[in-house]
């Protein structure tokens, strides 16, 4: 009895740690900057695809090198998604600060584009994109050096946009016709791709009785701990961390004191996106990797941040663990033996004891919880009316 409860507790924690790892990036972006990033799930998905690419690059090397691919993949996933986050911040989100609802819609648009992108991307398309960006932004940069740029800006855009699109179009179509399938075949396609954990991560250690703790879960647990410690040290001990905290607390005051708030924003967003990439790499070891992977996580991670209290890392930790454990206990029907003496309650728990109904109950509990603590478990203290 006790061992099974202990085991369920452990399973719950391991579910919670996945939630926490995926929510960490969001806690930074949403919690610290107040930006709702609906594309967070898709950044995770890109992290997972990066893992897939790295894995395939390591395959020819054979053992023992292949076993180490996961570490390279973690770094690569971080870098790729952080870079994309940077582009996203500079291109879209920068223009929408202070309008959270608009950001929400815009990032949803980004997430749709990213989903279709991984389905469609092929050499031809990539080439077209590169040519287009090269021509368009190159020409814009050249033009922007000229003094009367502001006057001709609108005109330049209307001219350059179709022009560079046309060139890109023509270039990719000639390439497509010349090399046929070799370049038009999508890299990943709409199908799921397989990421296999390296050999040393398969299997698990036996704990109490027949219970086995998978190595993958332990790996993710330790990864989560490392990420949290890293974040903590970065925020508390480094110069940029200090600046991020300052901007979070009072943007205009920080700007007055000479903190480059725009660069802080860009950095924070890139950091949050990079964490999403790491999370994506981690979840690729547990589940499927496909264009829709990110969708599974987005709502759960938002719940973690909101329940925990915005802007508090400790809140996110507590919330992720609470949600993870609750989800497991209800879904695996671990509680009903405890209340067997009271049949109606046990029957009720039985009714909710599958993964869908467990979600129903957990989300209903979250909605109820937020009635009592609208600002989450660890609310930010302040004196504004918008508490």
């Amino acid at each position, binding site marked *: 009895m006790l061992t099974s409860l202990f085991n369920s507790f452990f399973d719950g924690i391991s579910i919670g740690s996945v939630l926490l790892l995926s929510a960490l990036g969001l806690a930074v972006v949403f919690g610290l900057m107040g930006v709702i990033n609906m594309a967070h799930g898709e950044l995770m998905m890109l992290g997972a695809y990066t893992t897939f690419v790295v894995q395939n690059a390591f395959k020819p090397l054979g053992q023992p090198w292949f076993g180490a691919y996961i570490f390279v993949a973690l770094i690569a996933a971080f870098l790729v998604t952080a870079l994309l986050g940077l582009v996203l911040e500079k291109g879209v989100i920068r223009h929408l600060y202070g309008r959270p609802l608009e950001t929400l819609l815009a990032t949803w648009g980004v997430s749709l584009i990213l989903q279709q992108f991984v389905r469609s991307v092929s050499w031809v398309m990539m080439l077209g994109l590169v040519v287009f960006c090269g021509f368009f932004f190159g020409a814009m940069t050249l033009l922007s050096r000229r003094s009367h740029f502001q006057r001709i800006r609108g005109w330049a855009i209307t001219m350059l946009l179709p022009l560079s699109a046309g060139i890109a179009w023509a270039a990719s*179509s000639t390439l497509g*016709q010349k090399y046929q399938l070799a370049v*038009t075949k999508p890299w990943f396609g709409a199908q*799921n791709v*397989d990421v*296999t954990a390296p050999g040393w991560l398969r299997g698990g250690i036996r704990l109490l009785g027949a219970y086995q703790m998978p190595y993958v879960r332990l790996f993710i647990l330790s990864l989560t701990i490392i990420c949290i410690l890293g974040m903590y040290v970065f925020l508390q001990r480094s110069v940029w961390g200090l600046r991020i905290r300052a901007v979070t607390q009072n943007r205009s005051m920080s700007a007055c004191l000479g903190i480059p708030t725009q660069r802080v924003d860009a950095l924070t967003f890139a950091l949050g996106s990079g964490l999403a990439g790491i999370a994506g790499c981690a979840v690729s070891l*547990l589940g*499927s990797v*496909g264009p829709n992977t990110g969708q599974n996580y987005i709502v759960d991670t938002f719940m973690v941040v909101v329940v925990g209290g915005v802007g508090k890392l400790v809140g996110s930790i507590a919330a992720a663990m609470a949600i993870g454990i609750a989800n497991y206990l209800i879904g695996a029907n671990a509680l009903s033996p405890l209340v067997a003496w009271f049949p109606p309650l046990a029957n009720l728990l039985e009714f909710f004891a599958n993964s869908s109904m467990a979600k129903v109950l957990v989300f209903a509990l979250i909605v109820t919880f937020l009635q009592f603590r609208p600002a989450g478990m660890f609310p930010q203290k302040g004196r504004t009316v918008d508490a």
Partner: protein
Amino acid sequence: MARGFGRREFLIMGSVASGSVLLKACTPGSQDSGSPSGDTIKVGILHSLSGTMAISEKSVVDAEKLAIKEINESGGVLGKQIEAVVEDGQSDWDKFSEKAKKLIDQDKVVTVFGCWTSASRKAVKPVFESKDHMLWYPVQYEGQECSKNIFYTGAAPNQQIEPSVDWLLEEYKGKPFFLVGSDYVFPRTANTIIKAQLEAKGGKVVGEEYIQLGSTDVTPVISKIQAALPEGGVIYNSLNGDTNVAFFKQLQGKGLGPDKYPSMSVSIAEEEVKAIGVEYLKDHYAAWNYFQTVDSPESTKFVEAFKKEYGDDRVVNDPMEAAYIMVYLWKQAVEQAGTADDLEKVRAAAIGQEFAAPNGPVKVAGNHHISKTVRIGKIREDGLFEIVNSTDGPVEPIAWNQFVKETKGYACDWSDPGKGEKYKK
């Protein structure tokens, strides 16, 4: 995929490349054919090209297009070229019925090849029935249906589920069963059948769990399996799509290997093995009518044609094979009827059509299903299946299940106007 799609269209229709690739990608087959519309026969292809089900349905579309291309190259149907109008059901049942209406009313197609999930088939069924049209459906399904307007070329339960349960009872004598499935009509009905069958034959079911389609929360279910089968047992798996990936990855992580916990899957074929990763699946079982490893001239020809068209790394699977042969069956029916437009005649002519399919000889039965060979495969190192058991010849399809109380004693026969959809034997 956009450009890849265009390329395929381009190859299939054999049209002269002109204009840009993107333009081509954006143009559905109809505008691409290059031949005047007067001497073509229009058919509809209705599958999900986006959304959750795109994973499986895309390759079925590939197989259907391959068959159409082959037919066109060898002279077409009744001397006319086939022109495919492709529609995207977007994994959304209500889109399916909308697009079905569009294909019938606007494009005036003479038949539709399409659907994967039972939900999408059930959503379009009223459309095809009310417009008295024709749908060819290529996927194994739960049975309990026999529409005048639908031809089912996938396996009925007695051509996949029942033989595989019999085989498991034989192979793993006395072991208890645990049923896992996605939460929709196919697994639910399949498990109802399995439970009835096991009860009749002395097997034991210790648990039954459902996971929502597309969900990856499998840990609670795995814990339940562990608790219910402490000494090992058979897992009968009718999970669909993404969930399988999480399920097998975590099954292995928890130490539930195929030695003590062999699993029989009914929705995992070559494509899925590739996506899940063979490391997690080795030595598990799957039941189908066709595997890529089937050793016959027809099978080799099909595999080679497919790889030539779409690349060497692609694999074929059972639903793709069913999709491929149903186009040929339709063609034969049209040729026998001498018309493509008079659906009444085509449907009548379709019954009794025979074809040397990659899975073996098939024949359309009076109940609009086809007879096929049943096989059980064990997943090999290379991601393909080692065929461990197969029936001697084709198994006749049974639409209304004989293990389920409500439909016991009923049958379906469209070749006899007096019998129809459901009659008591």
